[in-house]
């Protein structure tokens, strides 16, 4: 929850704060296999929600705003990303 003083001044917030997350809307989500990733950053570039962070060896994923659009999965040249159905047994819950 935002501080009372912020709420009192209206829904105008200093970045990077966003009022609420939108990841709960998706029905599918990407799962990353860091072993396959060669850090080419194609996903980082293409993801419309800015879900990828750069790392030394591989990217990492923050799914708070991921819509499950699958663009990253389609763009990854190394098949390091897979789209799994939310709630399916194959979804690795630790990556939420």
């Amino acid at each position, binding site marked *: 929850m935002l501080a009372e003083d912020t709420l*009192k*001044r209206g829904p*105008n917030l*200093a970045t990077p704060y966003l*009022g*609420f997350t*939108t990841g709960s809307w998706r029905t599918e989500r990407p799962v990353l296999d860091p072993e396959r990733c060669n850090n080419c950053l194609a996903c980082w570039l293409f993801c419309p929600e800015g879900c990828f962070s750069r790392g030394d060896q591989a990217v990492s994923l923050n799914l708070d705003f991921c819509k499950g659009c699958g663009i990253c999965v389609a763009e990854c040249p190394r098949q390091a990303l897979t789209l799994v159905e939310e709630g399916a047994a194959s979804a690795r819950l630790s990556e939420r």
Partner: protein
Amino acid sequence: MRAYLNGNEAVATAVRLARTEVVAAYPITPQSTIVEKIAEYIADGSMAADYIRVESEHAALAACYGAAVTGTRVFTATSSQGLAYMYEMLHYVSGCRVPLVMAVANRGLAAPWTIWADHQDAIACRDTGWIQLYVETAQEALDTCLQAYKIAAHAEVLTPVMVCLDGYVLSHTEEIVDVPEQEAVDRFLPPYQAAYAVDPERPYVFGVGAGPELYPAFKYHQQQALLRAQEVIKEVDREFGAQFDRTYGGLVDPYYCDDADVILVLMGATAGTAREVVDDLRRQGERVGLLRLRSFRPFPVADLRAVLTAAGVVAVLDRDCSFGYEGVLATEVKAALYGSPAPVASRSESQWGQPLVAGFVGGLGGRDIGPADLAGIYRQCLEALRHRDRGGELVLSGGWQR
């Protein structure tokens, strides 16, 4: 300096004296001459503002919103269909807590097509989260615009203000107006200081999305701000009075209400005529009063109760209608009085607990409301009270000026 100004010129003068920095508006009768005058001021160099030309009222308010979040003092004006066209943006501006000022030269809504005065345009925007102040004279239009900037930008209010003036009756009718000196206005209204603004060094997201877990909290604080605005409107009016020697009562402007059996409640320029009628009836020994409502939003429940509860009949004159029910002000006055304790000391034999509220609709689409019309309302109410005092029932059905 005293000048011979109509209401629109008085508003334009206030906007210049307030050192407004950005103006965006689309022409619509009877507002147009406000922004025409401002355009003249900018062209002749007497006002240092940017004038943004836009393709519609929706765009006008959107441009004003954009300008205001850069931390500038902003103004726009509209009427009738134009205000209706702004409807979506009205919520954006108030929801984002942008303190801008808009003059509304009140005019009826089509159809049938009309360019003449009534309050339907602004009343229909009752729930948009704007403060609405209705003025009686060109002088008050000028003074209220200056006050409006101060009210809107108050740190605990941060809410846009509509200054409503009756089309033609005020917008196009000249009167002698005392125009304050620039230095005095500068003292009353220092430059606008936004708590935060568009700034590349410190990025902000304006009007963020808010899910169900956050939206109600923002709206709660908006409501609190509008309730708080009641005190701020009074404070600012008092402060204005201390500096310029003119006040308007803050939220309500009562006239001979202290011992009145019948009080007429109305908004806008009709109050000028009503004062004459009250004077006349008082000379004839009738205890009648007038309560001019200055602030329609926030709605001054406590102030209305303080003045109205002791009356026998409260007549409400609406220049608007909530079709399928009644005049909007009548409903609101009834709601404000509902459950209010009856006055302790009985003032007269006409004392009967809570007053009866009777709604009258008049002055639609510029229909003139003359002294005889208003005296008729008072007489009808006085007669109903006399009938009750003779042991009859207090019945009043209100009326519609056709």
